[in-house]
């Protein structure tokens, strides 16, 4: 199982046949394992890492620190859910340190994100304060280096 997931994590486009060869497991078993993993939500989704700036598309992202008041019985979970349900929220984490929730907000323009923070996020009852950091440049994401990644420089024939 772990082997198959590792392979899919690095390249989700590989087919059952290929994975079967790579792992030396029967194709039927590979297929079964993948289906199970999808069903149990061990595999959540297959996605593609895209460098949108190559298309000249502007996408604005901001890391927002959110300080909240935890609530009786549910702690941070209820307020976290209130927040991460917004489609603008790309990722949401509970963190240790000087604030509580770290969220990544995606929008088309800075105004769009500013409006989301000012109108939706900050006014929430248990939110005590927010600090918004707009991302200026993406160097690396999900293990992928965006610019100037390493190309292979070896000679075509060596002993």
């Amino acid at each position, binding site marked *: 199982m772990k082997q198959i997931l590792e392979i899919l994590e690095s*390249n989700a486009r590989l087919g059952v046949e290929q994975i079967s060869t790579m792992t030396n497991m029967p194709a039927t078993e590979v297929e079964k394992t993948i289906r199970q993993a999808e069903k149990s939500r061990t595999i959540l989704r297959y996605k593609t890492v895209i460098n949108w700036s190559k298309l000249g598309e502007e996408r604005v992202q901001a890391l927002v620190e959110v300080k909240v008041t935890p609530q009786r019985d549910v702690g941070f979970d209820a307020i976290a859910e209130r927040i991460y349900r917004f489609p603008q929220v790309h990722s949401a984490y509970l963190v240790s340190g000087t604030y509580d929730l770290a969220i990544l907000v995606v929008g088309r323009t800075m105004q769009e994100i500013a409006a989301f923070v000012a109108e939706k996020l900050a006014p929430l009852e248990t939110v005590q304060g927010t600090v918004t950091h707009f991302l200026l440049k993406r160097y690396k994401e999900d293990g992928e280096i965006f610019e100037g990644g390493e190309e292979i420089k070896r000679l075509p024939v060596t002993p």
Partner: protein
Amino acid sequence: MSATHSSHIKAAARLISQRVNNISPSGIRKFFDLLSSIEGVISLGVGEPDFVTPWRIREAAIYSLEKGYTMYTSNYGLPELRRELAKYLESHYGLDYDPDTQLLITAGVSEAFDLALRAIVNQGDEVIMPDPCYVAYLPCTLLAGGVPILVPTSEANNFEIKASDIESRITERTKAILIGYPANPTGAVMPGEELNRISEIARRYNLLVISDEIYGRLVYSIEHTCFASLPNAKEHTILLGGFSKAYAMTGWRVGYAAAEPEIIEAMLKVHQYTMLCAPIMGQIAAIEALKAGEADVIRMVKEYDRRRRVIVKGLNDIGLACFEPKGAFYAFPSIKATGITSEEFAEKLLMEEKVAVVPGSVFGRCGEGYVRCCYATSLADIEEALRRMGRFVERHR
């Protein structure tokens, strides 16, 4: 070309030593010249990882440059590197080498086996080695004044060398047995029992075994047996290893030899007058590799193993019968189904389908009928190369 110029060249050619004239240039190089002129080639002709040296290792070398470590080192190599290496050999193979007298850091394993041969071979001494084998074994033996004695190996025996075949070639001039497993070009790995038989023969006839284990970390679903770790083998073994393949550090040129103090001392004599020391930057990088590179080795081995399965199955599927290579990163399929020589095969494949492989014949007579395909290449390229080779085989069958 002017007359004076060409006569000058002829005069220069006459000045080349007989010893060098007697060895032929590597067949791989000839191929390289041809290849450089063609665009869009997928090369399975390489002999090195497609990974770049892990960042932490590179970063350690960068730091050392910032700190000004740019000097010669001890002829033996940096003491810290030898200490780390001794620990590594102890933890991986249970070997006990004294870092002060039994280890020598060299400029790659290539230098190490040249030193080993020059240190032990007298003019006319015989060195037994497998055929096919790594391209440098034979010429380096000749350059050292030795006589290479080739032991044929075949696919029928998974390209393993048989102890009995070695024994039957021993004469009073035999000095050493030179083996390199996991093997370049075949990917063969020797079973421990057979290595043990070779070790017993070496002891019985008082021979040295030069064991080139540069691919020792690259084995799949089996354990690598380090020759020196066999019972009573250490004192007649010159163990050679390096960092190039396991840590993806080919260009750094760091390797090592481990042997009895007298042998290391003799090798050091040649080393100190020719190389002086291995490059310090590479040595510092190697320290980091030994201290913290294990996870990277495991990651890369895992990746090679997956590609290995894809290429072996793929070659068999397109009609190039390929035995299962258990080590290194080469597949060595038979091309006999096409009825052409391995050199023709490689040349035509390059011209017609733009895939580069290395003809087996450059590794020895027993390599004829095979080609070496390196699978240290991206999965996408391996699959595309297989498609092209499939078309090629279809046409030439």
